């Protein structure tokens, strides 16, 4: 099977990573936000 002329294996192996990284950074942003809010409330 081909996607845009590229073997599907290569396409998924190469082009899913940018989406994974984006999702990962959004998760970290959310997680660190929760940690910082709890840090802030502890300090108060």
């Amino acid at each position, binding site marked *: 099977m*081909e996607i*845009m*002329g*590229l*073997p599907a*294996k*290569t396409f998924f*192996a*190469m082009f899913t*990573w*940018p989406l*994974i*990284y*984006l999702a*990962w*950074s*959004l998760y*970290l*942003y959310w997680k*660190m*936000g929760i*940690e*910082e809010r709890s*840090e802030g409330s502890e300090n108060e």
Partner: protein
Amino acid sequence: MSSILLERAVFCIYMSTLLLLGYLGSKRINIVDDYMLGGRTIGPVFTAISHQSTAMSGYMFMGGPAYAYQVGYFGLWYGIGDGGGGIFDLAVLGKRMRRLSEKLGALTPIEYLEKRYESPAVRVVGAAIAGIFLAAYVFAQFIAGGKALAMLLDINYGVALLIGLGIMVTYTFLGGYLTVVWSDFMNGMLMVCSIFTMFILGLIKAGGFTAVHHKIASIDPSYLSIWGKDYQYLGQWGVLLGAVLIYFIGYTGMPHIIVRHMSMKSHKNVRPAIMWVSIWNLFFVYSPYLLGIIGIVLLPNLADPEMIIPTLAHSLFPGVIAALVLSALMAAVISTADSQLVQLASILSRDVYQRFINPQANSKQMVIVSRLLVVVVGIVGFFIAYFQPPTIFGLVVFAWGVLGNTFMVPYIAAVYWPEANKAGALGAMIGGGLTNIIWTVLKLEAITAVHPFFAGLIVSIVCMLIFNRFSAGVSDTVRTAVQEASGGGFTIPPKLAAGMSKILIPEAREVGRFLISNRRTNSDGLGIEVG
């Protein structure tokens, strides 16, 4: 205006801006903390962009596209590693290193190691390895910069080297770390805008992704494989994993990159910085490799593959775009080289001069010494770059690998393992760095199908665990500082690490025997074939 005049005009504006930043930075230098860490005042956007532009050297404009041009989609594995490297580094080390470095009062990443592991030997070994390989790395950048500038201005290589180095040394001399971060931000924005524009225009010129892939398949379908041209790495997961890991986790061992954690205004900068890094990477890190692949179609008979981007810029996009792309190539070189230059000078002044030669040097004297060392490194670098121009790719990959394998495990253990001590750190540094060198020089990748970086990483982790048993524990002060720097997060429990080291000792012995016996049979012309 003719093309060359336009390019010269754009370049002159660019270089003048760098000098202006140097002048502005110099107004804010009062003490040595300002010169080496920008007074720990750097915000999240500048931290993120300078972190990434420092990590992305001239290799991204020359060696990277050339590699993809030669091996096809396999080259993109390096881009994939790079895509997550900045996020991994900030997520794993960012907050903890920022907190711990301030608690320990460290100004350089090597001084940080000495204070964390409470051992001058760690500093001596660290400064020696960082000094040698940062120097090799920065000299490779000088060569790339000289080549790029000679082409951009259509002048002699030596003159180009003199102009490029002269300007870089001048603004680094004046403004130190703060100017380096400002210029890295400007360079980072120039790099991402120009390379992504070029990628889109190149793709349009080649007829889109589908057309590019069909044309490549008609030349050689193995270019489109994940295993490289002619399926040269087929089934070699150790090589593939090494190609990804070298940039994915390698950042955490680069003194000139992780110093960005130490210079942040607050540990809370890490959160927005991760998002900035992620967005910047999305538009930058894959484009050079994809341009290399597009180059297979657009420039099938290119004599020097390292010239793909300059040739595409000149032949396809004359005028302002070409001038901007070529300035971006210089920006990539400069953003890495200036960070290495200021870091090298900081290590030499703080970790060698003040630590071992003149401990009484005051803050003002240290600023002067650091500035002088910037000039000395610049002069030495000029002569080395002028007389011994090696291939960029080989040098950068070698230097990156050795630095990563030397420092990565000690830096991570420093903040995640409160019981990690000097013997473990020294074992990890020497074992990891040495393995990378031996693996590369003896070409053990061909025998074992394991990338030198992957081998160095494993040896470094094993050495950390094993050697940690041969030294007294850490002081209560350091243990408490590490636990506080973790912010209540995960740290490795003492029993887990002790148990792992007991298991690993016999395993390490077996691996050593295997390698020695294979080297012998191979050198006799028997046994395993070298690929």
